[in-house]
């Protein structure tokens, strides 16, 4: 039974009769021929043959479109894999990418930044400007999505948008048990960014998903009492401005070799309060990411940050 269905569908796809995506409204159907009254016979025959030609051409272009796209993909694949030939081998210790920059970051990173996790020390101390730009991108995306999808406060709420799971006993019980664990885990990863794998982006994403799960299960009205619109705006703006101000002192004082040293030193590596400004910046980035993910969910679902 299954085999004949598969062969039938494959044949239809191959000949181009089956529409590639059934949700589209642009199916290739045969245009029916409409005859007017009092038309002589030879004119009707001519119109019929012309219409049949046009239908066949439309089917052929759809089939040709599909074949051409696969050929295009294969050509690009072949060209790119041909370039891989000239790249250095995988996991080669003598590759040009393993040069003195990474030896400096790994070798002297612990003394200069105080961070045990080299990746966190790199993105928040040696290359902190790039992470600031990335936080700006997140903030801009939130503003743009809010602009596109915002609804007025007094807009009528449809009945199917007020659907919640708060009457469902299984979901309520499981969410009650799981959401505190997720939030504690997210906070742990956020605070220990300089000592173990994790950091601002990972911890913020996990915190954000915890809040989204809570808002999904108990309804957005209940979640708005915990995390109001005002709180989201204040947290995002304060975290971003804190990041800007705390790392821009070096524009005026010079770097640590020529100018004024920062007040907060590297500290002893391995301690909780070490690494200079890495812990506060991790918190700032984590809060920006968490508020961004949560506000994406709220704006898509409801049109407001509540």
């Amino acid at each position, binding site marked *: 039974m299954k085999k004949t269905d598969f062969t039938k569908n494959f044949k239809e796809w191959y000949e181009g009769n089956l529409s*590639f*995506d*059934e*949700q589209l409204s642009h199916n290739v159907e045969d245009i029916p021929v409409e005859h007017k009254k009092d038309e002589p016979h030879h004119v009707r025959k001519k119109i019929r043959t012309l219409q049949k030609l046009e239908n066949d051409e439309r089917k052929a272009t759809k089939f040709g479109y599909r074949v051409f796209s696969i050929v295009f993909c294969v050509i690009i694949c072949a060209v790119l894999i041909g370039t891989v030939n000239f790249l250095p081998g995988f996991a080669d210790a003598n590759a040009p990418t393993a040069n003195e920059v990474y030896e400096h970051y790994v070798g002297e990173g612990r003394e200069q930044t105080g961070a045990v*996790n080299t*990746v*966190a020390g790199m993105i928040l101390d040696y290359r902190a400007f790039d992470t600031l730009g990335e936080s700006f991108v997140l903030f801009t995306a939130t503003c743009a999505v809010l602009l596109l999808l915002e609804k007025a406060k007094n807009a009528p709420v*449809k*009945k*199917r948008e007020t659907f919640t799971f708060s009457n469902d006993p299984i979901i309520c019980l499981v969410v009650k048990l799981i959401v505190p664990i997720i939030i504690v885990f997210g906070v742990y*990863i956020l605070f220990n960014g300089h000592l173990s*794998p*994790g*950091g601002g*982006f*990972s911890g913020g*994403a*996990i915190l*954000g*998903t915890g809040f*989204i799960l809570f808002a999904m299960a108990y309804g957005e009205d209940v979640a708005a009492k915990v995390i109001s619109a005002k709180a989201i705006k204040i947290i995002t703006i304060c975290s971003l401005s804190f990041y800007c101000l705390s790392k821009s002192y070096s524009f005026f004082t010079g770097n640590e070799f020529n100018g004024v040293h920062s007040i907060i030193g590297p500290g002893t590596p391995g301690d909780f309060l070490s690494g200079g400004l890495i812990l506060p910046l991790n918190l700032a980035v984590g809060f920006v990411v968490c508020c961004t*993910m949560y506000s*994406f*969910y709220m704006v*898509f*679902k409801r049109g407001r940050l509540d």
Partner: protein
Amino acid sequence: MEEIITIFRVLLLVSLVVCAIATALSKRVMTAVIVFTSYSIVMAVVWLLLRSPDLAITEAAVGAGVNGVLFFLTLRKLHLIDKDFKDDETAKSNAEVNENEEN
């Protein structure tokens, strides 16, 4: 021992390519989104094999979590969520009811 790890690596990479091709060739948008979520999770395991735990945590939380939620929310707004219908008529009548509610 090294050969087992190499086989494991090759298996994961082949399943990545298979998931991507399945996303491209699927007829319905909803199956494409679900296969894309599983593609994200396999990618998170590949990051672990390349010795970067930061990337694995971030990809698992963001790729399978937030991306999936956003795609499903849009599908709900575009009325593209599949339901288990036995007849096509009930599907069409439900779609009309949804549109009437909106208007």
